[in-house]
């Protein structure tokens, strides 16, 4: 494999170019399509300006960003203490927690939304009718990705020694978690947060079938009358997700080469390839 013949090299190059064309051309087409002036010909940036100027679209973007932030906060508040506790005090529950965290990969979002009606009757009864109530179900949707990222980071530190040292010096549980453990699993938390943001910004299934106007729902709605604006917003989401994951991959891998660290992308991937103990799937 290392010493490829010149024939092999040419074959490789040709294949790479073909794959590159297949994957990059639609993205180029989006950039072209969204800057085309359909009425007068030539180029215009109107579709891109609409991202801020179009009220409905702008509102939807704000809602999706808020949802992303809330989802990350709630997910971290629920998941991080649970995972630390399981490792320190309740190792018997580890298998169950892992299984439950990976379960959303096997149960498609479409199935969840079909069965969600009764649950949401209660949620809206207590909290009112707001797109932000989607936070709860989104926390469940991002669980598999977040779990793998945080689990990887927790595995790479000596959690027991760290927490015992902190506790013996007089720290309470809150101090131990916030000031001792969290700084040590920072890369895993960052991965979990970034991947969750990407998932929430791209989510369409649950939002559209629950009737809330998030970014993706609005993109589809606008697409019926104004193609270029929808295409511009779509390309913006894809590029934003790409930047997010690329920055993450450079941030968390930069300094520590070769170490068994919590690298984000393989973990996003790892969420799709289950550990032998639990079985899971994916839902794009």
């Amino acid at each position: 494999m290392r010493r490829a013949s010149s024939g092999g090299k040419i074959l490789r190059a040709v294949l790479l170019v073909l794959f590159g064309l297949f994957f990059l051309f639609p993205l180029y087409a989006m950039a072209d399509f969204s800057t085309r002036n359909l009425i007068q010909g030539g180029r215009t940036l109107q579709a891109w300006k609409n991202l801020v100027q179009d009220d409905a679209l702008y509102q939807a973007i704000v809602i999706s960003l808020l949802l992303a932030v809330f989802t990350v906060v709630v997910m971290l508040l629920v998941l991080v203490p649970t995972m630390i506790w399981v490792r320190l005090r309740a190792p018997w529950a580890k298998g169950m927690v892992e299984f439950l965290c990976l379960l959303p990969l096997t149960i498609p979002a479409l199935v969840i939304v079909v069965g969600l009606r009764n649950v949401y009757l209660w949620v809206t009864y207590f909290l009112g009718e707001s797109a932000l109530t989607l936070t709860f179900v989104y926390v469940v949707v991002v669980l598999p990705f977040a779990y793998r990222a945080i689990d990887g980071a927790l595995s790479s530190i000596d959690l027991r020694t760290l927490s015992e040292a902190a506790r013996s010096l007089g720290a309470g549980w809150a101090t131990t978690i916030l000031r001792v453990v969290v700084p040590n699993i920072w890369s895993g938390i960052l991965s979990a947060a970034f991947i969750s943001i990407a998932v929430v910004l791209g989510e369409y299934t649950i939002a559209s079938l629950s009737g809330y106007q998030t970014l993706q729902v609005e993109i589809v709605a606008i697409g019926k009358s104004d193609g270029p604006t929808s295409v511009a917003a779509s390309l913006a989401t894809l590029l934003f997700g790409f930047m997010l994951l690329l920055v993450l991959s450079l941030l968390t891998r930069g300094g520590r080469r070769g170490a068994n660290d919590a690298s984000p992308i393989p973990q996003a991937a790892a969420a799709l390839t289950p550990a032998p103990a639990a079985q899971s799937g994916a839902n794009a």
Partner: protein
Amino acid sequence: MPTARSGLSRMSPAGRLLGRRLREGLPLAPFLGFVVIFLIIPTVTVIVSSVYSDGDFSLERIQALFSGTALAALWKSVLLSGSTAILGAVLGAILAWLIVSSPRTSIFRRAVISMCSVLAQFGGVALAFAFLATIGLNGVLTLWVQDRFGFNLAGAGWLYSLTGLILVYTYFQIPLMVIVFVPALEGLREQWREAAVGLGASTWQYWRQVAFPLLTPAFLGSTLLLFANAFAAYATAAALVSQGSPILPLLIRSALTSEVVLGQSGFAYALALEMIVVVAAVMIAYGALVRRTARWLQ
């Protein structure tokens, strides 16, 4: 409190274990509450509601799954998932092989893997619009081909039919295959190739007799994962096909949004159950294959 303590010590070992478990398990309550309310209850609702209507056990909704419309949607879904799983697996494995030969930390590899992650997992609606902008009625490629060759690439709107869905799904299946197959390719150790070559094997013999057999379970497993992925995917198809419901996820949409009109109350539950059953069966087979792979991947 001595009495309480002696009471505790008189409890059976099983009882004491239970008490300890309860104390240890209590901090898990918020997490469990979340999962139960927003994942378990919806799933159980789907399963129960597909055989109970208005409190009575009835197989009526299950029977509706065998109607012409439902069977046609199921068949098309299987066709779509099967063809894109095979296409995605073969092409994705080739792309993964191209990527693995570049160094692990190169910017090229990081960029490609990040790209694959975005397209495979977070694309959804955006991918539908990517193809509308490329080969839709006013797509960039359509107009270009029209200009150069006077040939209408968009035809009679084939992008909105099953053929179109196959093309768009392949666009996110290949990246997913790359993500799940790269670790398997990396698991192939250099020493195995050296051993084979040292014993006089040619490159072709190494691939045919060592690498391919080792990679087969991972490849088949990934193909199953791709099948389940396409079978459950909703966003891309929903954004592309706004009228009609050729595939199962879109039939669920129309059952959900127009059940009052059609008088098919609860049909969505049965369809969702059908989806759970298919995906679960595929994922169990996948799990078995992954366990086989895990034996040598470690």
